[in-house]
């Protein structure tokens, strides 16, 4: 039995399920479990404070931005043809210099004083800072860790282009945060119908071959989203589906799209079901025939996928792997899968099962914090309030920039990926920089070891910090100590 009076176990739970202690939080150790459980709220995770509301207004502003860019380019073209060309230059070059798209050459005027970032980058920056700020304010950070987990499970990537760059934060705020303690089915539907996801995995381009538009334009299916729904979001790659199922689901969700600038189907930038793109007739998916009309067919298919036993096992194992161990105890994965199945995918119950599981609490701390966890825990320990550059710089070099995994499977979640020579070396560089930045604000690094690691700190780590040649070095040693790195 886990001895819950053991301060080491309590501290480990805070690191395993949360984001690390802030100075002055030592008292939180007294009732760790209650504090973790207290972050499970029916309205989901706390919302970051941003000046934009949701995907739809962002989408409309993005369309306006793109229209403005186009007009500026056109004005420049006309001006150049007329031999002038000077007046209109500014705006056109700004696009090339600040575009997030890879491989774009820097314009000849890129060295001019940095102009205001273009709209998508501006939104992305504000969302990124707000997300980190929320994680710094959180008490234990358990709900924020779950947001990170689900956001990575259902990832989008801003490398896709301006649309996702502007929408990634809204996607997390609208689809993920309100649903992390609700039903998995609702989370799934919120995610798959969000404009960011429909753009990221191309579904807004997919057209039913037998739909009105398909017959008229001779274009057709894009099966990208349908495949990843089953492979990555629900059943898992060995969850028992075939290529025919992928094609069927792709047909089922034809018409799930994003309202264009013409506002024909609703508010520009919001989700819409477009019957003109939807493949008519019934579809067979995983042996079951779906005959619902329009959007309802997709809703029914997603609901069934959410309740599928393969989904329960897939999610359970992934959750255990994230929080507990690369190769988690089989019994823990089974315990979580049972909770998922028996509650019909109640994520509050699942989160409660995780935090109160004996197996999850007592497993040794083997997992390396991800770069995002490491950076947030460091900011919390050092009492920093970072700006965008202080967030984006370190996360970029450590290989985990916000909302930018290299593929739809999200960032890796094992030590094999993060505990690498280059990965550790880069973390040391980051820790050295953080130590230099924070040295003036920390009175005594030795006291900070007690505040943030307490009973977990080894004699060797205490000694290394005490004997450091400088305060910045002492802080870097604390941040890179095995007890701070592993959870």
């Amino acid at each position, binding site marked *: 039995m886990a001895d819950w009076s053991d301060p080491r176990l309590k501290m480990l739970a805070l690191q395993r399920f949360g984001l690390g202690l802030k100075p002055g939080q030592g008292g939180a150790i007294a009732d760790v479990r209650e504090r973790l459980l207290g972050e499970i709220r029916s309205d989901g995770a706390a919302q970051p404070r941003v000046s934009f509301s949701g995907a739809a207004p962002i989408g409309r502003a993005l369309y306006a931005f793109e229209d403005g860019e186009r007009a500026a380019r056109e004005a420049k073209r006309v001006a150049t043809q007329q031999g002038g060309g000077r007046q209109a230059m500014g705006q056109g070059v700004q696009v090339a210099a600040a575009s997030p798209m890879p491989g774009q050459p820097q314009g000849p005027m890129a060295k001019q004083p940095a102009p205001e970032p273009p709209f998508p980058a501006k939104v992305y920056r504000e969302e990124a800072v707000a997300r980190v700020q929320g994680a710094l304010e959180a008490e234990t950070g358990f709900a924020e860790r779950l947001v990170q987990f689900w956001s990575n499970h259902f990832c989008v990537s801003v490398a896709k282009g301006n649309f996702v760059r502007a929408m990634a934060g809204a996607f997390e705020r609208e689809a993920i945060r309100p649903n992390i303690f609700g039903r998995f089915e609702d989370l799934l539907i919120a995610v798959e119908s969000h404009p960011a996801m429909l753009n990221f995995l191309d579904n807004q*381009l997919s057209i039913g071959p037998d739909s009105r538009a398909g017959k008229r334009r001779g274009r057709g299916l894009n099966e990208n989203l349908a495949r990843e729904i089953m492979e990555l979001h629900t059943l898992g790659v060995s969850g028992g589906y075939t*290529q025919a199922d992928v094609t069927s689901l792709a047909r089922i969700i034809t018409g799930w799209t994003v309202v264009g600038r013409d506002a024909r189907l609703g508010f520009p930038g919001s989700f819409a079901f477009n019957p003109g793109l939807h493949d008519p007739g019934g579809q067979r998916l995983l042996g079951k025939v779906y005959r619902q009309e329009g959007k309802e067919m997709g809703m029914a298919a997603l609901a069934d996928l959410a309740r599928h036993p393969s989904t329960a096992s897939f999610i359970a194992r992934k959750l255990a792997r994230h929080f507990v161990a690369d190769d988690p105890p089989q019994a823990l994965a089974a315990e979580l899968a049972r909770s998922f199945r028996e509650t019909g995918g109640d994520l509050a119950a699942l989160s409660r099962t995780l935090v109160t599981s004996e197996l999850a609490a007592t497993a040794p701390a083997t997992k390396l914090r991800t770069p995002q966890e490491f950076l947030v825990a460091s900011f919390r320990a050092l009492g920093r309030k970072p700006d965008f550059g202080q967030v984006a710089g370190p996360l970029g070099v450590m290989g985990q920039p916000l909302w930018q995994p290299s593929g739809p499977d999200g960032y890796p979640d094992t*030590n094999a990926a993060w505990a690498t020579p280059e990965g*550790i*070396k880069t973390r040391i560089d980051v820790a050295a920089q953080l130590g230099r930045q924070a040295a003036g604000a920390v009175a005594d690094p030795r006291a900070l070891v007690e505040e943030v690691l307490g009973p977990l700190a080894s004699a060797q780590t205490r000694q290394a910090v005490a004997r450091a040649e400088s305060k910045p070095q002492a802080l870097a*040693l604390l941040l890179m100590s*095995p007890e701070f790195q592993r959870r």
Partner: protein
Amino acid sequence: MAADDDDCERMTPSRRAVLGAASALFAWSYMPKFAHAAAGSRDSRFLLVVLRGALDGLSAVPPLGDPGYADLREGIALAKDGPEAALPLDGFFYLHPAMPNLARLYAGGQAAIVHASATGYRERSHFDGQDVLESGQGGPGKTESGWLNRLIASLPAGEAVSRHGALGVGVVPPLVVRGAAPVLGWAPPRMARAGADLVQRLGDLYGERDPALALVLKRAIETELIASRQGAEQPRGGGGPDSAEGMKRIAEGAARLVGAEDGPRIAALAFEGWDTHANEGGAKGRLATLLGGLDGALATFENGLKPVWKDTVVMVVTEFGRTARVNGTVGTDHGTGTVAFLVGGAVRGKRMIVDWPGLKPEQLHEQRDLKPTTDIRAVAKGVVADLFGLSGPVLAEKVFPGTGGLAPMQGLVV
């Protein structure tokens, strides 16, 4: 990683072949090559480039001689002539116009192209596909180690290859080099490096408290030593592995390390962004930009590895191909057969290695993908057998387990 194994018993390559082979006859057939290697003539270099996201082989190396090609590829098809003509290879196959360096290397006998190839994996998940490609296993789910790592582990200590280990490029190195054998890590630097004293102190702390972290840090320090001896600091910043600029920087760094006298002989790196579901483009566009980046990286290897280029093979592979037919969004979905490139002074080049299956509907795999007729593992086995003198049984049991029935392809290396 031991810096020097001179006091270890050093097996001669020919003796190793005798011990390693299951049958004496098989060993005998390999003897001449080993005898040749034992004379110390070749200190081989092997670089594996993984293109993540599934390269569209029918666009990279279009079979313009196939009558079915143009219809399948409406909207992205390449042409034999015109201002953006594809580059001729053998009259039937052409090369994408964004790859002039590869065309030049091909014409100069330093590049061969394998077409209609695939691993043994026949599903269409990127992630499983990459795992199979890199683990060298028959199926997904076995990701403890990669085949290049096991290759090194299979060589006797003391060989230049095993002495210097493999290089995994990237903050997260590719699975293909991960495993028990030492792996060096390197990524294009993007932030000021921490002081050596801090690194030393952490090395000491890890030594006492965390052996796993101690080991990875030791390897990082070793790599940095080699890199610093090879020349000036690189500029910091720049694009990622899905941009032409990023590919070039990665190739420069890898070439600098692999070209060093005491550097790793084997390297694995990954370029990203090949998952062209929508608006793939033809002679210009999204895929063309990526292929241009790859082409630039190949020229960078050639230039950066000049002194050892004659002993070098760069192998470019991807997890699977894309649908033969263009999809509903002027892109291509996940498919099966695709291309692989072999480039380098040690390649017996200027040839297409292909058993062309055709593009008629009934000739396609499941009526949708280019049918794979060449197993890429046979190609990989053939290359590393010739470069590093590995025996068939070791290749079939350790490096690519369960491939006893799949003979290493002969004659790929000069």
